[in-house]
């Protein structure tokens, strides 16, 4: 089930998607790392897909989130490896997860349904393997995109909605730090703590889970 309402279905023009207040997003991270990190640091080069190429004080940082455990597994744990089955012990030791509840609606740039018809890019460009020069350039452009409102004001989108490179049906969100206050962070737990949920997510992804 989608966590996003696209275009007119979300009360927005085509090209944008709404993620409603109350939605829970998940952030995978190292157990000893802060979940609410919007990287890269100012002055550092971008590393990940929708980081800006070189972050200045005027550029937003990015926090990568997903509304599903599958999204977190694909983007954080599995990535370019083809490990199957996954190790519960490794996930418990090396990965943590923190949920964040949205305190307001997010307006996101839609790179899922209208990436070509509105934004002029196609899946191979958005889902290219690293290095992420092309998507980082795109992200840089998108940070300047504004959405005019009926009252003459402009709305600055909160980030980018995209599909995982490893399973495009799994929605992911690259959230800019202008929306940091929209996240109400919960407790950090080991990724392996809810073994049933993990096993279910692995089953849905068609991979095994071992000790």
């Amino acid at each position, binding site marked *: 089930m989608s966590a996003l309402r696209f275009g007119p279905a979300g009360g927005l023009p085509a090209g944008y998607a709404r993620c409603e207040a109350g939605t829970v997003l998940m952030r*995978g*991270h*190292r157990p*000893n*790392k*802060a*979940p*609410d*990190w*919007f*990287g*890269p*640091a*100012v002055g*550092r080069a971008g*590393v*990940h897909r929708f980081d800006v190429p070189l972050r200045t004080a005027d550029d937003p*940082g*990015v926090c*990568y989130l997903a509304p599903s455990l599958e999204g977190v597994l694909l*983007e*954080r744990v599995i*990535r*370019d*490896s*083809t*490990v*199957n089955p996954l*190790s519960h*012990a*490794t996930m418990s*030791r*090396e990965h943590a997860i923190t949920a964040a509840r949205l305190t307001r609606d997010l307006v996101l740039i839609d790179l899922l349904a209208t990436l070509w018809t509105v934004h002029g890019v196609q899946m191979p460009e958005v889902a290219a*393997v*690293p290095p992420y020069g092309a998507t980082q350039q795109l992200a840089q452009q998108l940070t300047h995109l504004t959405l005019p409102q009926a009252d003459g004001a402009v709305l600055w989108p909160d980030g980018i909605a995209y599909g995982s490179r490893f399973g495009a049906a799994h929605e992911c969100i690259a959230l800019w*730090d202008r929306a*940091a206050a929209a996240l109400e962070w919960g407790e*950090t737990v080991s990724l392996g703590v809810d073994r049933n949920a993990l096993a279910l997510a692995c089953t849905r992804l068609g991979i095994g889970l071992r000790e």
Partner: protein
Amino acid sequence: MVGAVAQFEPLVSDTGVPRPYEAITRISEIVGSRLSTEELVALLATPQVMLRDKTGQPMTPFAALALGETTRVLDLVRWVVTPPDADAPDVATGAHASATA
């Protein structure tokens, strides 16, 4: 923990001593405890789209190492074990209250 993975240089004579590729040591250092030995072997033994050969076919990292593509393999391994929070502040520092910079 990684400690049981090796790949050896081809022997140049039948009296030679097998020598492991130094890159495997570097890979083990990069991986640390983030992958089990089995997971690392699976990573190194599976064709990877980030490691295409001259014909465009994905190579396994083991095959790429044998062709001298050490840098590309190290980049791949570093990428796989370095998710987006690699530069994030440690929780213990309490710095994440302003973790946007």
